């Protein structure tokens, strides 16, 4: 899977650009590029459902992020970073990388997953749910409870964002009784 590896490298480079760039707007665009790269990787890994959703979510996230940075793209104030917190973070990151390398030894090789539960979805998916798109049958029938939870997360975030962005949080003491 050469193209997969190339795309992964592209995404890693895009992420580094997004992190290190000083201008806010261009780092937001770089994150968009990483998101679209991820969308293509989903296509390569045989997940069209995810590609559509990732593409559309990426567009919306970009619009929201650009909306936040547009009027305020003040250049990032760059000062010398305290050295010791920087070193601690890098040491911790390298430790996590090494630990994950050893932990992944016992994972099945890439391309040969253990499909103990998924095999029943594939074999019985069609007759028991009637949906030809197995991913939708998993989402909306076998594990529909997850999707109820997930729709609620979106509902919570939306109500939360609306409450945070309302204009007046507390009533002044004076006008408390009339409300």
């Amino acid at each position, binding site marked *: 899977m050469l193209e997969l590896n190339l795309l992964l490298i592209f995404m890693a480079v895009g992420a580094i650009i997004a992190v290190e760039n000083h201008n806010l707007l261009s780092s937001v665009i770089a994150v968009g590029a990483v998101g679209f790269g991820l969308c293509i990787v989903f296509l390569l890994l045989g997940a*069209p*459902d995810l*590609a*559509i*959703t990732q593409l*559309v*979510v990426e*567009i*919306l996230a970009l*619009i*929201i992020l650009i*909306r*936040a940075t547009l*009027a305020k793209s003040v250049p990032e104030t760059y000062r010398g970073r305290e050295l010791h917190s920087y070193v601690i973070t890098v040491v911790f990151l390298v430790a996590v990388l090494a630990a994950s390398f050893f932990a992944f030894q016992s994972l099945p090789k890439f391309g040969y997953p253990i499909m103990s539960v998924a095999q029943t979805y594939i074999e019985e998916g*069609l*007759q028991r*749910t*009637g*949906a*030809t*798109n197995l*991913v*939708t*049958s998993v*989402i*909306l*029938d076998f594990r*529909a*409870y997850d*999707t*109820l939870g997930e*729709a*609620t997360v*979106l*509902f919570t975030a*939306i*109500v939360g*964002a*609306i409450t945070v*962005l309302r*204009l007046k949080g507390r009533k002044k003491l004076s006008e408390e009784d009339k409300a």
Partner: protein
Amino acid sequence: MRVGMSPIVKTVTRVAIGIIFLYGLYIVLHGHITPGGGFAGGIILALVYILYVLAFGKEEAEERLSKSWASALESLGALMFLAVALAGFAGGYFFLNVLPKGNPGEILSAGLIPLSNLAIMLKVGSGLFAVFLVLITFSVVIRKEEE
């Protein structure tokens, strides 16, 4: 102060909105046959309104679908999805697919799944549009205060 973008953009969006809306509906209705589903379709519909707001300015979009209507639709969509879940109680368990499965490949197959897809589309679409509207109106107010 001219509201929205230039007339060229306005005419193009007027044409494009119908097509994108249809595409979104297609994605939702065929969610259980071809890739796609309630979420992707719902977000596409939200993007249709956002495109409308960007092209024609906030006020005109407001009377198309106002913020209070959007959040009401969102709660309605969520309630519909919960109703689909509770309908499962009729068959004994919480999320049981009670409707007949129909023959695969048609739109009216797979029992409750198309219904849940519609409910999710309603919820996701109107909810995200409401958030976008709130994000827009929030900063506009500050500019007024500053002046």
